[in-house]
C-alpha cells in the first residue's frame, strides 16, 4: 500500500515537472543566463491571461515576450534594464512585484493599520468583559447560594 502511494507521488511529481517544461523549452548558453531568464520570466505577468506569468503561459504573446527577454539577456542587458523595458511598454501592471511609490505605498500600509485596529478593538472588548466579570461577583454568589 505504502509503496503504491509513493509510486503515485513519484509519477505525479514527474508529470508536473514535464508539464512545466513543455511550455517553455528555451535554453540559454550559460547556467547564469538560464537562471536569470527563468527568474525574469516568472516575474512578468502574462497580460492576456492576468493571473499567469509569461513563463507558464502558452499564449503567443507570452512566447513573444519570452523571446524579448532572451534577446535582451543575450545582448548583455542587466535584469533592471530588462524590467524597465517591460514597464516602459506595458506599465507597472506587468510586474508581479510592483515598486513602492507614493501611489502604491498604501497597499502595504493599510493591511498593517487594519490589523492594529482590529487588535485594539479585540483588546478593548476582552478588557471590558474581564472588568465586568471581576466587578459583578453578586451573580456568581447568588448562583452558588441557590445550589
Amino acid at each position, binding site marked *: 500500500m505504502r509503496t503504491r502511494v509513493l509510486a503515485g507521488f513519484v509519477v505525479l511529481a514527474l508529470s508536473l515537472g514535464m508539464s512545466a517544461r513543455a511550455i517553455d523549452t528555451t535554453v540559454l548558453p550559460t547556467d547564469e543566463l538560464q537562471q536569470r531568464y527563468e527568474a525574469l520570466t516568472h516575474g512578468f505577468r502574462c*497580460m*492576456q491571461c*492576468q493571473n499567469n506569468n509569461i513563463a507558464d503561459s502558452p499564449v503567443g*504573446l507570452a512566447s*513573444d*515576450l519570452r523571446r*524579448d527577454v532572451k534577446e535582451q539577456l543575450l545582448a548583455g542587458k542587466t535584469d533592471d534594464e530588462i524590467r524597465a523595458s517591460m514597464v516602459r*511598454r506595458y*506599465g507597472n*501592471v506587468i510586474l508581479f512585484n510592483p515598486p513602492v511609490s507614493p501611489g502604491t505605498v498604501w497597499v502595504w500600509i493599510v493591511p498593517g493599520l487594519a490589523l492594529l485596529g482590529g487588535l485594539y478593538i479585540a483588546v478593548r472588548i476582552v478588557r471590558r468583559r474581564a472588568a465586568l466579570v471581576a466587578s459583578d461577583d453578586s451573580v456568581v454568589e447568588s448562583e452558588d447560594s441557590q445550589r
Partner: protein
Amino acid sequence: MNRFLIPAGVFVALAGILYVGVVHSPNKSTMQSALLGKAAPKFSLPVLGEPSRTLNSTELAGRPWVLNVWATWCGACREEHAALVDIARAQQVPIVGLDWRDEDDAAQQWLAELGNPYAVVAVDREGRTAINFGVYGAPETFFIDAGGHVQYRHVGAMTPEVWQREFVARLPRAGLP
C-alpha cells in the same frame, strides 16, 4: 447608541472608498497604455500585399495617424471591421493597420471580403512591433499625433461612439507639434 457609532463610521468610510474605487478605476480589460504622451515606437515592417515595399514609421511623421492592431484570428476584429470601413470613408485621419501574428494570405482574403479601411497595412508576423506598443490583445487602436506621440489607446472593438469621443475629438489638438 454610542457603541455603534464607530463601527458604522468605519463601514461608511470603507464603503465610500470602495465605491470610489469601483466607479473610477478603469476597466481591467481596457488598461491605460503606458505609452500615453510618449513617442510612438519606431518600426520598419513589410507592407501587406506588396512584398517588396517596407513601411517605415518615420514616413508617417508630421501628421496625426491611427494604428489599428488586428488579425484574422481575432473575433472582435471582425466585429469592429464594418465600423472601421465606415470611419475610413470619412477620411479624417489615415488608419494604418498592424496585422499581428497573422498569415498574409488570410489577411488579404479578409480585406478583399470585408473591405479595406487601411491606408496601408504593416505585417508584424513575429509580434515585435506589437510588443513595443504594449499590445496585449487585439483589436487595439492607437491615436498618434503629428509629433509622433501616443495620445490615446482604445482596447477592444472600435465603435462610432468611441471614434467620435476619443479620436475625432483629439484631432484639433493633434496638428503640428
